[in-house]
């Protein structure tokens, strides 16, 4: 039987219309509800990580003042902070949250293609979060092995949480990967199979391109983490020695022999480096859409942007060992991985140029989302530049494992995507709730976050150049660290407290505007993409009413010469486009006009 596209057999589709409160809001199969469930869970667990980071910062800033954190607890805090932020907040929020919300709406689908599996994905994710957090309540507490969980240390005495903590961490990761795979297969299939009529791949908004590519990366990269996690679990519980060679433990020979710690690192970073782009690419995509909408201009170099996303995705699989320049692997690998790493900088730099060139000759509305766009471009330039230091093997050697790398990855993978997330929430909250977030609170939140985070991370780079080692509970006496460095550390901690407090403004805004925000209408930003063209706001189950939308143009027909308005929705047929009097513009897709 010939294949018929999903969009062409819309009338055959059965939507699982919710019958009760429980199926509508809890066991929901609606991608929008699942997106909100994912987002709220991720933000909640992110708040736990935020509190953990404050306890670390208090110790580092004021090492002789607070007695509530011991070295063991400090290492548990850095481990859980890192893992939560990277996996359970950023990955879950950008793919499970944004991916779920945006893909069907932006592609013109009624839902994900496998709604039941989508629901399962969320509930398994929630379970993985509970398993992770439960390690705080067991004897010995969570693992303190660092978020990279490097064996043999992570499974040997001398590391906090070596009994139950590491086991719960690994089980939680396995569950997370199961959840991600169920969601990820959905996102990929939906993008490939369920786009509405007229929505060709090269008409998709870059947000969809970014999320789609990131999901493919995730489906290819997470298996490496899965197998290494299971092998490590066996080392910890079953007495295998995949990653554990013969060694001394507490004065006695350990029961292990023959394993390779470096093998784990290769597996971990084969996942871990694409993971950076699993977080970055959705952020790249989303920011491209925000910049176009709020500058009233098409994204500059759309085709180049798509190719940049794809080539970054491919190259990201051959750069992993730049995390391992000083790991003891064969040092000749350094030549290869330094070269691939600096090559990946080129498409990344082109993306930055194109964002700025989109603003160039634009009509920049300095809305709150646009402020976050500008803040993101600034922090990403900064974080990208320091990546050129660390990717270049000879420059990395003095800086590796210092505060410099802490500053770098927080700028590029912490602050940058989080600014995108904030900008996106200010941008799409009106669609999700029907109400605008408060503008003034948004501006205060933006400036506090941008300046505050920069005050935290800029000085770290310089402390790292000086040689301050990361993952030190206390610096103590050294021959090379002056007292001024400790004073700076205290200043950084104060900035961190300030940033954390200023996030309360955001949380308050989220809650308050839900009831009291200005009514938004269906398309408050005058945007072209499909999610703003839904018949209801917020969109109801099934998204599109009786008929699926039909797309006539790419996602970026802003300020087309001859058109009467400065935006033409993707659903608007050429003959319906209002034109300037006397214009020769025929209303066709601007890119090809």
């Amino acid at each position, binding site marked *: 039987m010939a294949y018929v596209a999903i969009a062409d057999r819309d009338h055959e589709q059965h939507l699982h219309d919710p019958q009760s409160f429980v199926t509508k809001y809890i066991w929901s199969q609606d991608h929008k509800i699942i997106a909100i469930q994912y987002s709220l869970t991720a933000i909640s667990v992110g708040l736990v990580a935020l509190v953990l980071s404050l306890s670390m910062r208090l110790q580092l800033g004021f090492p002789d003042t607070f007695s509530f954190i011991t070295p*063991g607890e400090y290492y548990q805090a850095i481990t859980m902070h890192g893992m939560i932020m990277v996996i359970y907040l950023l990955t879950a929020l950008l793919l499970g949250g944004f991916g779920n919300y945006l893909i069907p709406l932006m592609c013109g689908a009624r839902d994900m293609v496998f709604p039941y599996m989508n629901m399962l994905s969320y509930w398994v994710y929630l379970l993985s979060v509970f398993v992770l957090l439960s390690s705080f309540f067991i004897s010995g507490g969570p693992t303190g092995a660092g978020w990279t969980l490097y064996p043999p240390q992570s499974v040997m005495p001398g590391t906090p949480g070596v009994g139950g903590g590491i086991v719960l961490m690994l089980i939680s990761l396995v569950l997370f990967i199961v959840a991600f795979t169920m969601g990820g297969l959905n996102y990929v299939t939906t993008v490939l199979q369920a786009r509405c009529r007229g929505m060709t791949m090269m008409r998709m908004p870059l947000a969809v391109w970014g999320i789609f590519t990131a999901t493919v990366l995730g489906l290819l990269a997470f298996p490496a983490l899965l197998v290494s996690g299971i092998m490590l679990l066996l080392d910890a519980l079953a007495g295998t020695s995949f990653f554990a060679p013969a060694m001394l433990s507490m004065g006695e*020979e350990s029961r292990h022999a023959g394993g390779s*710690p470096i093998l784990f690192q290769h597996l971990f970073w084969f996942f871990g480096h694409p993971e950076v782009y699993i977080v970055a690419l959705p952020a790249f995509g989303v920011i491209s859409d925000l910049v176009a909408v709020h500058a009233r201009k098409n994204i500059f170099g759309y085709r180049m942007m798509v190719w940049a996303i794809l080539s970054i995705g491919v190259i990201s699989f051959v750069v992993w060992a730049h995390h391992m320049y*000083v790991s003891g692997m064969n040092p000749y690998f350094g030549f290869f991985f330094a070269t691939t790493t600096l090559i990946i900088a080129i498409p990344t730099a082109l993306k930055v140029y194109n964002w700025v060139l989109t603003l160039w000759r634009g009509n920049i509305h*300095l809305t709150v989302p646009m402020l976050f766009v500008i803040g993101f471009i600034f922090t990403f330039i900064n974080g990208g530049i320091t990546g050129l230091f660390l990717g270049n093997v000879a420059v990395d050697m003095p800086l590796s494992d210092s505060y410099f790398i802490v500053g770098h990855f927080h700028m590029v993978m912490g602050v940058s995507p989080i600014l995108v997330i904030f900008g996106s929430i200010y941008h799409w909250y009106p669609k999700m709730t029907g109400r605008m977030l408060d503008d003034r609170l948004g501006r205060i939140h933006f400036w506090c976050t941008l300046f505050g985070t920069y005050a935290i991370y800029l000085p770290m780079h310089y402390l790292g150049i000086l040689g301050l080692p990361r993952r030190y509970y206390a610096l103590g006496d050294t021959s090379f660290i002056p007292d001024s460095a400790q004073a700076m550390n205290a200043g950084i901690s104060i900035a961190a407290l300030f940033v954390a407090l200023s996030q309360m403004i955001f949380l308050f805004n989220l809650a308050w505007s839900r009831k009291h925000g200005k009514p938004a209408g269906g398309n408050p930003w005058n945007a072209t993409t499909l999610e703003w063209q839904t018949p209801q706001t917020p969109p109801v189950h099934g998204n599109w009413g009786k008929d699926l939308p039909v797309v006539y143009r790419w996602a970026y027909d802003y300020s087309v010469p001859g058109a009467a308005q400065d935006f033409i929705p993707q659903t608007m047929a050429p003959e319906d486009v209002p034109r300037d009097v006397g214009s020769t513009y025929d209303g066709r897709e601007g890119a090809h006009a």
Partner: protein
Amino acid sequence: MVAAVGILVLVIGTLLFHFLSPWWLTPLAADWQSLDDTLIITFWITGVVFVVLNGFLIWVVIKYRHRPGLKAHYEPESHKLEWWLTVITTVGVIGMLAPGLWAWHSIVTVPEDAREVEVVGQQWNWSFRFPGEDGVLGQVGIEEMNPANSLGLKADDPAGQDDVLVVSGELHLPLGIPYKFVLRSKDVLHNFTVPEFRVKMDLVPGMTPYVWAKPTVAGRYDILCQELCGIGHFAMRGSVVVEEEAAFDRWLDAYPTFAEVQEMAAPNVAMGQAQFAVCSACHGAQGEGNVLLNAPKLAGQAEWYVQRQLKNFKHGLRGAEPSDAFGMQMAPMAATLADDAAIANVAAYVASLPDFLPPATVQGDSKRGQDFYVTCQACHGAAGQGIWSMSAPRLSRLNDWYLVRQLQNYKQGIRGAHPSDLHGKQMRLVSGVLRDDQSINDTVAYINQL
């Protein structure tokens, strides 16, 4: 407009911070100018990019901010512009990568005339081994490791007989001679870092990675572990002293070869007993301790620890601090022991004394102390039994008033202040967990129950 000003403030702030901040590379002490040069080149290239890109961003935001009547330009793409940007970026990347790979080539190419030294890491100490006359490091094995052979050399390997064993966290190196550091871990991952040398590399159990450096400036530098290796990671410190070759030779001569260690006569307990007569005046005939004379109980303490402390007292690593009144009393006593053999004899005798449980004198909340002890037990053991491989002495069944005093001494920098007393330095770092006297008393109260 506010947005543009905000970004401008950040850019100017960044530049001011860069030029005014007091934190920069430590003075280079090895022949790695090429690494520093690559870093500086990278700073210049990326610095220009930072200023130009952000400058353009600021200008664009000012010039094209929304005003009534403004309409955006419509231009989907510009192949020419994108092509030029790709070319310029590629040139910049090559400008950084080429010197970087060039420098890396030097890193992976160990000079033929480089000498070798083995750096041995363990939770949470450093030791070192020189290959001796034959220039070859002997074979080692985990199964060989014990308090008398902590580096685990194989007795039947002829290459190992002349290896010089430096079981101490202090390494000396001669000026101007390239050294290949062969890195070995006894347990988990560690990382050998000397900030002033620039190079660093992980120690991986089951493998022997290496780095090399030629020290060029005399001085004392810190060795740091920079790979998370457990709870004591931050306290895993060593030091390296770069000095003239003659001084280095004298230093190295003081350390025994593996053959000498093996041939060392077993300590003579009877001779140790004779020499213990001096000690017993304060510490008691059975090493039972005397609180009135401030002399702690010795019976039950491990032999290797008594030896190390006697040497520390004798060589001024302990008991030289003027504020350490009781240590100052002990130092001249230890000096009466003529040589290492005498010290070994006394330590052997002390180890033979019958152990007993001394009375508890310290009051504290042992429940609270148990929480603090979680940190201590990583080295000293869950039962306070002491673990030789951690260089951590026994804590249980000691005089509790002595423990309190030592913890206070560590906290106040009275003990562990000597730059060569690296174990003491470690305790100074870790004792920071106990913020006040109450915490010390609580911890000792818990140790009393062990």
